[in-house]
């Protein structure tokens, strides 16, 4: 697998404050990579190093196999969390300026801007001043400017903040389309449901250290505890429950007498699902049998809390 970005034992200090401590990560090409962590964990420091805004004190970063150098700047697009535009500058002029700073020629930038402005249906904003735009409108312009130069790697820091649900959805679709067109994407956010939806890989950074990384599915697999939620159709609650408790670990149970349903969750140890299902089915009809898969949110909170209690 090719990696668009590899960081090797990157450390960064600000005075006596350690922002990153030996962080290594590998971002596979053409993936959406979630960069997660509590506030102040060091995500922004890492992103700034990738953007060559700051430089690591030690460690190395490779872009597409080469040591990170100024030529890579035009191959990266960055939408920072703290973002804005020149308030008294016209939208079109400003977009042109920012695109040219990324290395596009003026004509090229104009052509591409027209495409994106038409796509977002904001063509008539060209001569408006930024201060006349709403926050969401300005965010759209910023998004366009970020992706305009067709970078190989896009870094989005909280890309959905400031958008209403409809526009957030639109941006999400754009991100997916960019990914389908071959772009690699680093995605930093606190909104776990969008991580769930978009990311294939995640890294969790906490207190300047990487504490977890890998593909989302493998992490989920590692974090699941073989717990199953089961619903059975019966009026014979007590009897069945007693029998089950003798043989399995029943975590919690709930009797719904009105619907004649017994709900419980059990943790499997050695038995396969096949075996337990056969056993359960012999007792009563099964309404549902569902494995409990941890959400990213659960994993996030659980990992951070266990780290904090260890510390």
């Amino acid at each position, binding site marked *: 697998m090719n990696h668009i970005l590899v960081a090797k034992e990157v450390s960064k200090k*600000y*005075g006596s404050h350690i922002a990153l401590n030996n962080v290594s990560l590998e971002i596979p090409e053409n993936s959406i990579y979630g960069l997660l962590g509590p506030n102040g964990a060091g995500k922004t420091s890492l992103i*700034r190093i990738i*953007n*060559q*805004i700051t430089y690591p004190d030690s460690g190395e970063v490779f872009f597409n196999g080469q040591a990170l150098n100024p030529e890579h*700047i035009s191959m*990266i697009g*960055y939408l*920072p969390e*703290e*973002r*804005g*535009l*020149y*308030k*008294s*500058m016209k939208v079109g002029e400003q977009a042109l*300026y*920012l695109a*040219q*700073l*990324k290395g596009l020629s003026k004509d090229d930038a104009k052509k591409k801007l027209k495409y994106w402005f038409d796509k977002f249906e904001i063509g008539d904003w060209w001569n408006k001043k930024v201060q006349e735009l709403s926050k969401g409108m300005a965010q759209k312009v*910023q998004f366009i*400017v970020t992706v305009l130069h067709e970078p190989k790697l896009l870094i989005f820091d909280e890309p959905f903040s400031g958008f209403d649900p409809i526009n957030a959805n639109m941006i999400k679709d754009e991100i997916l389309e960019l990914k389908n067109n071959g772009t690699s994407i680093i995605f930093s956010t606190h909104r776990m449901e969008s991580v769930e939806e978009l990311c294939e890989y995640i890294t969790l950074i906490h207190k300047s250290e990487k504490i977890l990384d890998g593909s989302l599915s493998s992490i989920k697999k590692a974090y699941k505890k073989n717990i199953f939620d089961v619903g059975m159709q019966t009026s014979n609650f007590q009897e069945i429950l007693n029998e089950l408790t003798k043989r399995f670990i029943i975590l919690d149970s709930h009797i719904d007498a009105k619907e004649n349903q017994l709900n419980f969750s059990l943790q499997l140890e050695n038995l396969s699902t096949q075996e337990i299902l056969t056993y359960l089915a012999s007792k009563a009809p099964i309404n549902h049998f569902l494995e409990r898969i941890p959400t990213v949110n659960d994993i996030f909170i659980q990992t951070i809390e266990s780290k904090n209690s260890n510390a």
Partner: protein
Amino acid sequence: MHKLLLIIKREYLAKVRNKSFVIMTFLSPILMVAMVVLIAFLTKLNDGDKQIIVVLNESDYFGNEFVTTESTSYVNFKNIPLSVAKDSTVNLGFYGLLHIPNASTLEEISEQTFFYTKEAPSTMVLDKLEQIFKNRLEQNRLQELGVSKKEFIEIDKAYAINTATFSGELNIKGFNEIKAFIGGGFGYLIMMFIIIYGGFVMRSVIEEKTSRIIEVIISSVKPFQLMMGKIIGTSLAGITQFVIWIISASILLTVLILVFDVDPASFDTTNQLAKNGMPAATSVSNISEKAMALGAEIYKIPWVMLISFFMVYFLLGYLIYSSIYAAIGAAVDNETDTQQFVFPVILPLMLAIYVGFFSVFNNPHGPIAVAFSLFPLTSPIVMLMRLSSGIGEGGVPVWQVILSITLLIITFIGIVWLAAKIYRVGILMYGKKPSYKELYRWLKY
């Protein structure tokens, strides 16, 4: 390089298109001219308020000495008691009453003369009266010595020592001051430019911080490029403004002179001398001769040299100060926090101007003048004041100029390096109220 040009262009256009900048550019010359006209008008208005002074002369020594002028007229009272004269002066609303009693000698009379006014009299009026008495006393003493007025005028010829350099060039008195004024003008220009456009650079940095565009830009260009682009773009806007000012001011002045037929020569001091009743006729021709010589000397000022050095000192001085301003802008979150940092920056500039005007004028090559023209933060201003007297013999020694520029270049590199470091850290720092200690720590990041 291409990116730097883009930044310079944006900064320049952003500044030049700014409404208040445009208004300032075109309004300032008009305001300046309007100010001059207003001052002239007000002065005239002030003078136009004619003061009427009552003279109660009881002596034989004074007769027609009190001549009504533009601003003062005299009314003579005769043969009335002092108390009545006082009352009527007050009743008539006249400015004051001059009472000259009778006595045997002029000295005694002068001793006993009083000038009564409602409030303390203005010095201008007093000067006039005193001058009349002084002239009368002088004339009297001369008479006692048996010297006629005509003889005295011939005796009382002013004398000015001739001065020359060792190479034999004639010096003209007061010319050093004029040279220093020209140098001072350049120095003052540099100071104004630094304070105004340094402030613009600072505000522009703060704007990028508060609008949060900075991180987007910084991911495309180096902070140093952005800082330099900003400084250069803003200074180009400033130069544009200055050029417009100079052109429009000269047009306005020409128009004024043509329309109102103002004769610049009317400002000549000779007219005033003549008014004092002093025999000035003989000196008039002298003075105009001198004025011509002065003009020739001004023409001889090494303008090319002076302007080239102006460019050098201006460039280096401006770059040093505006990078400090950029660093200040980067260190703070809003303009109100800048005070504590801006004051120490303006201080050396003010010092340079004061030292320049007080010390360089008196002694262009004295130790204080030399020291301040070598110290990099004041040298752009002070050295220019000194340089108007030339380089080499009779002027600033060559080694001082070289040393001064060398020190300035070293400081320039050092300060820009330091400022860029603070700038680089500061632009991404929010919500921290910076102290000098904090800035020092940033230098080590």
